[in-house]
């Protein structure tokens, strides 16, 4: 009567193993190497990608806080600008300006304007300019100017 154990002990064939072992030895040695390398590469890739993602996320978060800070600075500057605008407007108040002018600068309010009537002198010396007629151009010259698109000008006013 044989036991299960015995059956399992018999199962491996002592004659086949060396033969297979002889054939597979180099491949078997290479396969774990390849798998380990593959695993390492994948792990490294995942690590690098993860790190890049983390760096990117950290930078985005950092830039976000920077943007928030700048926005707060902008808002504070806007508020300060509003306050300064109000102060400028207050300083422009007419009663204050008048008080400064009168009390500090010894100025006086204008009470009257003096209008001086200045009659325009008659311009008898003016005379109409003599009409100047443009010298007649020859037909050939006019045709040439049309064709070439160029033209000549004559100083009619007598000024250089």
């Amino acid at each position, binding site marked *: 009567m044989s*036991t299960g154990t015995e059956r399992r002990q018999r199962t491996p064939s002592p004659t086949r193993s060396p033969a297979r072992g002889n054939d597979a030895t180099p491949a078997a040695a290479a396969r774990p190497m390849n798998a380990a390398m593959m695993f390492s590469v994948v792990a490294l890739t995942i690590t690098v990608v993860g790190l890049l993602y983390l760096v990117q996320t950290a930078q985005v978060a950092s830039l*976000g806080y920077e943007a928030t800070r700048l926005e707060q600075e902008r808002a504070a500057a806007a508020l300060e600008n509003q306050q300064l605008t109000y102060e400028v407007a207050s300083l422009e108040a*007419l009663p204050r300006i008048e008080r400064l002018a009168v009390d500090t600068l010894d100025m006086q309010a204008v009470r009257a304007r003096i*209008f001086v009537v200045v009659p325009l002198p008659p311009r008898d010396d003016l005379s109409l300019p003599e009409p100047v007629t443009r010298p007649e151009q020859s037909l050939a010259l006019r045709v040439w100017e049309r064709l070439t698109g160029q033209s000549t000008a004559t100083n009619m006013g007598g000024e250089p």
Partner: protein
Amino acid sequence: MSGAPPARRPRNDVPRYRVWSVMVVFLLFVSAISYRVVGVQVVRSEEFGRWAVAERTRENVAAARRGEVYDARGVRLATNVPSNRVSAILSQIDDTRRTAELLSPLIGRTVEDIDSALNEPELEWVLLARRLTPEVSAQIVALGIEGIVLDPEPSRMYPFGTFASHVLGFTTYDLRGAYGVEGHYDDVLGGSPGKLLGERDGAGNLIALSQSSWDSPIDGADIVLTLDSAVQYAIERILADVVAEQSAAGGTIIVQHTQSGAILGMASLQTFDPNTFNLIDDPTIFLNPAISMVYEPGSTFKSVVMAIGLDDGVVYPDTLFNDDPGYFAVSGHPAITNSQGIVYGAQTMTQVLEQSANLGAIFVAQKIGRDRFYQRLVEFGFGYETGVDLQGEEVGILTLPMGAGWNDVLFYTNSFGQGIAVTPLQLVNAVSALGNGGRLMQPYIVAEVRGADGTIITQPTVIRQVISEETSAMMRMMLESAVLHGTGELAAVEGYRIGAKTGTAQIPSPNGGYIEDATIASIVGFAPIENPLFTVLVKIDWPKELFSGQEVSAPVMARVFEELFLLYGIAPFAAQGAP
């Protein structure tokens, strides 16, 4: 078998039931997790998604900037400033009395008042003060009182205080406009708030590059008034002087550009500071007397009646009228006489205006005819809003024939400005039409609205032609004569041609009749006569030293015109007419 040791089971020879047991447990575990995962991620994913978004995101209202208000010279009259409100978290205040003593000088409330507020039994927190300036806010922060909290809130400020306050109005704490330009143009100035919906971190900061939506606020438009701060300052000063000199109850001065209808100045007393509107107990102070208070115009109204008579061709400047025996009898009513019972005898229409004769005005009204008279008054805008772009305009009281409250004597008393009530702006606008060739202009106070999408410039608008150019020319001459030879003599400015009509109206008593010795002294007119540019109304309420428009208001008008001629460089007539 007895002597042999039992065969050892190989290490990997695990009983199958154990494997299955582990597998079943594992499967159960995985199933439970899967069930939960599917439940969370699939079945209720939308619900949880909404929760998560609601947890991370927050909606903030971005307030629109309220537009600023400038005068015609570019002077800023209303602007926005940062401010704070201070509150107290009552459970955190240890010594309420000490806290009240420290805050009292800074926030303008009494120690007892603050202490009482800090001991409110029913409240968790109380608002102690609003619109604190940055300086005061900094002082409160420096006190370092635990439980005292400052929150920023924008507020509206009026740099010149009471200056033109009735024209400007004010804004409430929630920046809603009330009265004046602020009230009328609240939608234009206020803009539309925006909305920022975005993910935020634990500190409430917006997470950059996260999903967010941003509806930008639409800022309010800036407004440029026709009001000239130099004119406004001058008339406010003059008005304050005369009200003080006459111990008057108040008064109004309006300066309108005769040709366009633009308001150059509008001052009234009593006034208020819009920065501290909350301190005013009587809200009627906020009403602009120039548009919201009605009064009997008295004899100033005769100028309008005379213009109607001339325009209808029923009288001419030299038409003679004899007021003998010096009274006009109306059945069932006391006889109507001229002021102080004076009998002038025969007089021209020009003299009727010069002497401000009541009986002469009745004569003109009778010539016009009752129905025609009231039709023309309505054409002049009496009894209706002028449509000026200010909040709170009244229509006045014009009782039409056979209308409610009508009686026959009204027709006669209305002809000299009694029994009718107008706003100062209605009258000044009607008198502008007498001077500008007969065009009733739409009065306006906003010259430009400068919005994000462009600038809208108000164009002068003619409502209707109420009298002819010829009638206007006659009225200019007649009103000038009223200044040169009549009751408006004290309104004259040397070298300039001014036309004006005075008025002294009694003040109706709430109990019926009129208040004894109480008058409204007024004058309305324009200058320069050769080309009227300024229409001025001066109205002094209940002067105590003198009482008539002739004595009280005419000299004030002269001062106003002097200032206007100086400010705008108007040359005297002699200089203009020189060859």
